[in-house]
């Protein structure tokens, strides 16, 4: 097709006016077992497509709580009310101690970080939100983490600016039980100027369920070209299927467009009217690797 397009195709500007649906409440929540400050909930609103605004439109002053519990087949979820944490828009040091509107943390992150909210593998978590008189809920569970066997890197090479780089490789064995799913995140320990899951490196292009590779040894080369000499903190994130499905749909939705794709809607796991997003339980194994 590329050739045909190159030979003949042409492009022009046109006016497109579309009917905007009702605005959506957008939820981005995380609960993980490794990084206390990375357990947060971001609340925002959707915009009309033709709106001139391009930043997040936060929902401030909402009531946001997270409660831990357990799940048993037959009896369902049991929530431990004493574990309920009220999340607040606090100023945390990692964000330069500025209040970021619409980003909700466990306030103990600032006051008593050792006891701040932390996910536990095998447990389930209930997110409850009340904003502008409307209620939204979500449940996520943390599976058992999958052990990283080793981290290595590919042979190094020079990029166009002369920097020596290589690609990070992760090796692990998929558990024998079927139904495991992983997400891959890593960050550069030298450059500590970023915060949040959205600012980490991740690999969006690897099929990471074990439907077809159950029990196999997995060796993945991530395509990011990373500077040799830097140390990478790696997070092998095991998730339950609804969380995987959400991020899989997100990775498809972010490359929407063109004749070969169809509209993708996010596979949200939040309950409520006109709401989209996910509450992601991340069960993490972590390791560091010096790029050589």
């Amino acid at each position, binding site marked *: 097709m*590329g*050739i*045909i397009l*190159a030979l*003949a*195709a042409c*492009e*022009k*500007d*046109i006016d497109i006016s*579309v*009917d*905007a*649906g009702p605005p959506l409440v*957008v939820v981005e929540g995380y609960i993980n077992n490794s990084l206390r400050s990375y357990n947060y909930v971001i609340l925002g*609103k959707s*915009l*009309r*497509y*033709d709106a*001139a605004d391009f*930043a997040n439109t936060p929902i401030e002053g909402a009531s946001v709580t997270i409660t831990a519990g357990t799940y048993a087949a037959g009896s369902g979820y049991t929530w431990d009310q004493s574990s309920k944490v009220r999340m607040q828009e606090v100023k945390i040091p*990692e*964000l330069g101690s500025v209040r970021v509107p619409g980003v909700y943390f466990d306030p103990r992150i600032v006051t008593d970080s050792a006891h701040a909210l932390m996910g536990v593998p095998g447990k389930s978590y209930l997110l409850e939100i009340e904003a502008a008189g409307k209620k939204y809920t979500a449940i996520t569970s943390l599976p058992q983490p999958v052990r990283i066997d080793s981290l290595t890197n*590919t042979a190094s090479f020079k990029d166009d600016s002369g920097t020596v780089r290589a*690609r990070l*490789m992760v090796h692990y064995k998929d558990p024998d039980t079927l139904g495991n799913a992983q997400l891959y995140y890593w960050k550069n320990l030298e450059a500590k*100027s*970023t*915060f949040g899951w*959205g*600012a980490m490196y991740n690999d969006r292009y*690897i099929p990471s369920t074990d*439907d*077809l590779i159950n029990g196999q*040894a997995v*060796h*993945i*080369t991530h*395509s990011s*070209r990373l500077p040799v000499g830097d140390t990478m903190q790696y997070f092998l994130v095991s998730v339950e*299927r609804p969380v995987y*499905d959400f991020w*899989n*749909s*997100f990775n498809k*939705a*972010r490359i*929407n*467009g*063109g*004749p*070969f*794709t*169809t*509209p*993708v*809607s*996010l596979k949200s796991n939040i309950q409520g009217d006109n709401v*989209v997003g996910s509450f992601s339980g991340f069960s993490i194994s972590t390791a560091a690797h010096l790029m050589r």
Partner: protein
Amino acid sequence: MANRRKPFLIGFWHFIILLFATLKGYGQVRSLKLFISDAQQQPVANAGIKVDSAITVTDMSGNANVAVAPGKHQVVITAVGYEPAEKIMTIQGDTSVPLELKPAQTQLKTITVYGERQVTLGQMSTHIIGIDQLKRMPVLFGEVDPLKTITLLPGIKNGGDAGAGIYVRGGGPDQNLVLLDGITVYNPNHLLGAFSIFNGDAVSNIEVIKGGMPAEYGGRLSSVIAVTSRDGNKDSLKVSGGIGLISSRLTAEGPLVKGKSSFLISARRTYIDQLAKLIAPDSFHNSGYHFYDINAKLTYDINAANSLSFTVYNGKDKFAYYREAESSGRKRNFKADWGNAIAGLTWKQQISKKLHQELSLVYSYFNLGSNVTYDTDGIIFSSGLNDYQVKNDWLYHVNDKLFVKAGWQLIRHEFKPGAGETNAGQQEFASKITKQYGREAAGYLSAGLDVTRQFHITGGLRVSYFDQVGPTERVLYGEDGVPTGQKEKYNKGVVIARYYYPEPRLGMRYLLAKDASLKLSYTRTVQYLQLATTSAATFPSDLWVPVSKLIKPGIADQVAAGFYQEFPDKGYEFSVETYYKRLQNQVEFKPGAQLLLNQNLEGEMVFGTGRAYGIELLLQKKTGALTGWIGYTLSKTERTFPALNNGMPYPYRYDRTHDLSVTANYQLSKKWLFSGVFVYGTGNALTMPGGRFVYNLGYNTKTDEPVFTNIDQYGKVNDYRMPAYHRLDLSFSFTPNPDSKKRFKSNWIFGVYNVYNRMNPYFIYLDVNEEKETIQGKQVTLFPILPSVTWNFNF
């Protein structure tokens, strides 16, 4: 002694033959066997034969059998691209008559271009276009294309420029039974739909049935598109060919045993890739696209009653894309090749004067292999299917008022929904989606009866059957799409899912006058295979999947009514047809479904219903220096899926309210023929985002700036309309020496596609520039004005 006995023997046999002939003279019916051929003694298939009021058509070998009473009969023969012939015949005994038709274009004033007389034909919603008409149509890059031409008829739509699918009366692109000499073709397209696989040089005619499908056809919901390939010349060796801008063709044909058997082999290859490399060697280095196809046909007349024909097709598309970033050395490579191979052997037997049978053995194969590498990551993907088929059809002419048809078919399907493995880098895994097997069978019985001179009725029943069978092994998934850990294993031949349905078919024709008729039909059709596709362009990554426990067979019910009027003095024929179609068990994929390498493909499907209705007008001018047609369709097509669009009905993507096509051929002189096509259609329906939001937030604490991704928010399904599609194409055919008696003949075809350079939308999108904070709608057009020239020759 011997010499003396011969006259006696001859006399004896004459006596016996005369005796039988005389005895038979007292019976009610005689057999009139007609062999219709052109000037080169090539059989003319699908010629209409009218003996008094009885109507039939010739088979692929140009034979037709009519049961007649002894006495005088008027025989009228009409065929696509030929002069009509009329004869008064006195039939005493069984008679076999060869008849030669004159090609239509030899006479300037009375051109009969295309063929079937809609008024008298018992079958409704049917069009047959012969190769002569196909060759007159202006086409993209000068490639004669039967599939593109039928989309100019009312009720038959394409998806726009390079849209591969054909959409008949609101049906999907997988709902057409595409046949080459009776063999199912699964992917009838080259170049993502810009061309069909049917090479004009090897084609005799194309027939499309969009309603009132006769009982001998089944397995698809919406239409039959039957392409008949040409028999080779039985008397002398002929070579023909054409040299065009992007492709060339060469055909050789001739006798194997003179008068008894013939061969035809026709090959075609595009050279866009070679041209591109010449024009821009750097940018097309290691990238390219080409396709080739080869058609071959062997025919052999064993004796007067038995003949064999063997059809072979093989074609392949090859696509390669290669890019290497100069600085980083990052390599991006995509290679894909895909194609069909089909073969069919047919034995035709005229058992008696009234009884005819055809037995076919058919093999059909489609395969796709692709190889994608991006730097160190790579994946090999392959998919395909194999079909083996036996088919047997019987035709019995009880008398000149009644015929009976019966037959059966068995198909064994083997589906390869996809296998993949990595070949590069370290991402080592191999995965394989389990093969699936299906057994499809059908039997039918139908009869056509002239109840009165005016009233003809055809009724039939087809019973179809499908088994999904083992061996297969599959993981079971829960409703949430999570594998349960349980496996289902089926041994060879074990039935996994079984379906069978009766499919009643009914057609009626009532002659209001000599030149006018009314027709009515009802059909139920059932389909056991679905094409899994999410993209607008039928990309060859599409998979055919069989029905299963979860996927129920598609069912369509269609009623259609029509009125037909001829104006023979003026050469016009007018028809109006209206239809209502209901579709059940339709399949769509969830937005963003994972189609490749997905063991749980069924989990990505949603099920719903559809309906389509419309009115189609067709005015044809069939004779004179100016011929052509105007077709107009007013229609509506909807789908309703509980899981999509909040369960509300939404327009089908190719719902086209207005669809107009005008075609014209004008013989300017013996040397020059002018052709033109104008098309207009309502734009395709499209789902566009109404809103957007930011997601996956992070912060760069150094610059104090957020990082995020913009995600589109979609509302109603197919609520947006692309701009209308319209286009004018012209072509001029120039024959330098039309009266030349020389063996070598040639002509030139000059064409202009999209004469007024209409910027028709191929796709549209919203371009978001986050830095400049602007949003702009963009429209991409595939084919602007495109001239073409082709030189054709034959000797």
